[in-house]
């Protein structure tokens, strides 16, 4: 084999999450009330559009979660030697964008650097000018004015390709739907667009159209240009944005693995049993939530950093080291954010405890464990789902804030937070370097907006107070 698979902890957790989500989906399909609630989300245009966007983000992140180390050319016979760099499948897909480094900043679609340099010309004279980029727009040769026309033509090609792809997708979807509903393709061409019951496939198709119209031209253009510009060390900003997606998703999802067990256990126990147990748990979360969260996180992260720095031998590569810090951050974020959900669950369990069906179960002599798992837990799951989905976006945003403060992810790890943090200094330059910040903000905005819209729809579908 000419590569070695590297399984980072966060990779494992992400894939584990995916598996459990799929398992949960299987459970949903078999239970009718759950299916009805998720069906409501499926029938909502807003929900399906947001879900489509989220799926795209998740696919990017999953692609970025399959890591390997390439085999180095053999030094000697015998044991193979692998490189210290760890790459992911996404890196392979983006090899071009990753490897075509410029010297330093360059604006989007620029053909020259953003800073003047002394250039030695062929005749030996030195002039101070903006040097040509090594990779951006080189195919134009001397016709540097032709960028707009060339980009436009490529974009047009991209749009045409996107349209063709979309029509292909739509046709495949229609055919699949027709096959499932047992109709002829001709009859079923309308349903995806007109369907009032079932899933809102039209919203999916429209969102896909938007994504394709944006992504395909971007992909084509990025072969010739740095479409989002380059950063201080000349790396493509587009590449950084795509790499940041995984970090954001890990930060948004993995802390729930810590939050959920704590909140469920403590919340249900406190609410159901009451008494001194309730007092103890209440004091615990009151104390925890009265310590400023940022302070607690900063202290924990700095401690972890010390541990990491004193044990360099634990890690085979820089990526693994950064990954441990990411996990530590997730863990501490989870530890500080379970109190809200716990309080909600405690109140709900107190309410459920008095309900007649719980009393009836007690009259049958059903044990506490039986009552908690059969009668209480299933009836608080809607709160859990709503709060997990709503918590996602706030976690993603808090990562940006923490990285900005300097206690977030490892500085070597690309994330929206580190991108914004780096861009901070560049805002002071004259002329200003704006693209790095803008690209990070825009993509984070799209991710968080999609998550929030989805959370909205989930809330509407699960909250018993909305009819």
């Amino acid at each position: 084999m000419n590569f070695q698979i590297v399984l980072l902890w966060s990779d494992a957790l992400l894939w584990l999450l995916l598996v459990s989500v799929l398992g949960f989906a299987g459970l949903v399909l078999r239970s009718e009330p759950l299916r009805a609630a998720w069906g409501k989300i499926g029938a909502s245009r807003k929900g399906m559009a947001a879900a489509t966007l989220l799926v795209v983000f998740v696919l990017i992140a999953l692609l970025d979660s399959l890591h390997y180390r390439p085999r180095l050319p053999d030094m000697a016979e015998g044991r193979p030697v692998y490189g210290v760099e760890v790459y992911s499948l996404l890196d392979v897909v983006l090899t071009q964008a990753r490897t075509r480094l410029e010297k330093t900043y360059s604006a989007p679609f620029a053909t020259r650097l953003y800073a003047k340099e002394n250039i030695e010309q062929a005749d030996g004279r030195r002039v101070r000018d903006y040097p040509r980029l090594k990779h951006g727009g080189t195919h134009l040769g001397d016709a540097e004015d032709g960028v707009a026309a060339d980009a436009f033509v490529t974009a047009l090609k991209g749009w045409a390709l996107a349209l063709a792809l979309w029509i292909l997708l739509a046709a495949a979807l229609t055919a699949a739907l027709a096959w499932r509903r047992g109709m002829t393709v001709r009859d079923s061409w309308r349903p995806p667009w007109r369907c009032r019951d079932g899933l809102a496939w039209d919203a999916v198709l429209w969102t896909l159209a938007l994504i394709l119209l944006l992504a395909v031209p971007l992909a084509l253009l990025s072969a010739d240009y740095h479409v989002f510009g380059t950063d201080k060390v000349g790396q493509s900003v587009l590449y950084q944005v795509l790499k940041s997606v995984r970090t954001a998703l890990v930060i948004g999802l993995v802390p729930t693995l810590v939050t959920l067990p704590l909140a469920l256990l403590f919340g249900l126990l406190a609410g159901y049993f009451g008494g001194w147990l309730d007092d103890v748990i209440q004091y615990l979360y009151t104390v925890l939530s009265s310590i400023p969260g940022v302070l607690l996180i900063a202290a924990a992260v700095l401690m972890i950093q010390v541990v990491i720095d004193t044990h360099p031998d634990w890690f085979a590569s820089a990526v693994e080291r950064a990954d441990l810090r990411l996990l530590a951050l997730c863990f501490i974020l989870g530890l500080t954010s379970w109190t809200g959900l716990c309080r909600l669950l405690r109140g709900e369990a107190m309410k459920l405890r008095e309900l007649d069906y719980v009393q009836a179960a007690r009259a049958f002599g059903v044990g506490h464990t039986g009552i908690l798992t059969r009668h209480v837990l299933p009836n608080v799951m809607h709160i859990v789902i709503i709060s997990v989905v709503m918590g996602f976006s706030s976690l993603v945003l808090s990562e940006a804030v923490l990285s900005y403060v300097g206690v977030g992810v490892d500085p070597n790890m690309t994330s929206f937070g580190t991108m914004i943090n780096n861009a901070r200094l560049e805002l002071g330059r004259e002329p200003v370097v704006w693209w790095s910040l803008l690209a990070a903000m825009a993509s984070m905005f799209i991710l968080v907006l999609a998550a929030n819209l989805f959370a909205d729809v989930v809330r509407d579908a699960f909250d018993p107070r909305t009819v």
Partner: protein
Amino acid sequence: MLTVRDVRVAYTLGGLELTAVDGVSFDVAAGETFALLGESGCGKSATALAIMRLLPANGRILGGSVCLGEEELLALPECAMRRVRGGRMAMIFQEPSTSLNPVLTIGVQIGEVLAQHGEFPKAEARRRMIELLALVGISDGARRLDEFPYQLSGGMKQRVMIAMALAGTPEVLIADEPTTALDVTVQAQILDLMTKLQAERGMGILLITHDLGVVARMAHRIGVMYAGELVEIAPRREFFEAPAHPYAQALFSALPDAMRRDEELCTIPGQVPGLGEMPPGCRFADRCPHVMPVCREQSPDWRTVENGHVVRCHWQGGSAGEPCGKKGGDNQAAVSGEPILAVSDLKVHFPIRRGILQSTVGHVKAVDGISFELPAGRTLALVGESGCGKTTAGKAILQLLPVTAGSVRLAGTELTSLSPRQLRAQRRLAQMIFQDPFASLNPRLRVSEIVAEGMRALGGKMSTVERQVAVVELLQQVGLDAAGSGRYPHEFSGGQRQRIAIARALAVRPGLIICDEPTSALDVSVQAQILNLLKSLQNDFGVAYLFITHNFGVVEYLAHEVAVMYLGRLVECGSVDDVLRRAKHPYTQALLSAVLVPRLEGQGEVIRLQGEIPSPANPPAGCHFHQRCAQAMPVCRQRYPEVTATESGHTVACHLYA
């Protein structure tokens, strides 16, 4: 005065427009009470809200006309309608506790209404508010004005609601189930008040109710609603002597009372059709005992029975009809041997904790020493007003609440001293059915899982197949289709859910079932079905019922013995005849006199009770009832009376009989 013509109301649900009220027409004259009678889901409240133009956002008035005097209300702009509401027309609602804003004082809330209908200087406004409160029977108005709603009892809140409604001196008062949430003695006070105010002011009242007793007490004319249509309009006398529509007749014959003890109650098969599935012809056709082919094709027109009595029905027969009740065969078999349940001196006290250290400063004596015995296969009704501790007693007997003192012997075993493990073995013998069929079934479990719960917990080793067979058998016993076992509770109506709850309790073959107001959340016709079911189960399996209720019709129909509870103690106990016909305790007498009978005659003089039930945290010294008792003697203030008994086993705790 109020003329309603052909009003149609539709609700938009899930993109569909569903007609809830379809062409309702009636008049309310000045000084007249017109009662809209019908079961839940018949469109009574929608009609009232349409008249006030207060429909929720998804409701719409499709057409028709509502005239108040000469003014067409449906054509008024909203700003003019705001003057009409509260000014010329006012409304009071069912639930007084949610109709008042909990963070504002009474004075602020009444003042708000006053300010809408005239400018008064502050002192003048306050004087008028005190007048209004005096008008609705609140004597210390000056103090009450500065109190918050939580400081008032339910009856008091409803009085405040009426005072607010009267603030604008309305010509028409719309009362939407004004006494449904109140106890019988308070209900009598509120209805008296409404009659008195009507006589003084010549108000028209549109009374919306499902209670034939309230109708008999209040109404001058009655309109019966069914599935969004008026089906019969009749003056009071004609309606109670000879109801013409089969639906109205069925409502009467479904009422439980002593006369029907030995027979099954009439039920109306099926249920009110949903809004989206109205049958084309007569809407009652599917449930009508007199249905004819023409009923299914053509909606009947109004037909005059006699002067002022009109009905929409094709069937022209009289009201006679064969009595539908089969002989149910009352279980009179004398039961000997040991009682299945013997309670003696049962006490349940809840500590009141105050302060930082949560030290106990007192006790709410919810149940304060009750004793009774219940023989196997018999029914004991535990009656009393809300807050007297009936439900607490029921739960304490099942050991669902910690018992403070006393003994509960179930089939000879003392329950209060058992360890949790030993108690589990006894659980099989006693089960409970709850009041609210919507809260008593776990919405996340299938019907089969709900019914099988007891078998899983107590039934020992049973295979899945055996359990499934048992579930199907149980569902059939309670009159449900076995095909429903795979469905979830929300797919069933209230009555069907109550049947599921009964099946769940029956699953472990208990000797005693504690029924906590199992029919009070149900409509009359459904109540009859459940009562029939309970009765036949008692005959078939010899189950004993401890029946907790405040509905005396149900007591008369079902109970063998009655125990009357007041403030945590039993005041009177005896056979149903002794207690209901020859009541001794002044409280029982007052309670019985306040019960409204759904007949023209027969309403005796109501014994008015002073004040409200005292708090169980701080019961009065001596006899708990002495402050409200008309026959109180000095000794009543000093010590609680001993229990005295006659030979027939009729016991009463009152100094009058000591």
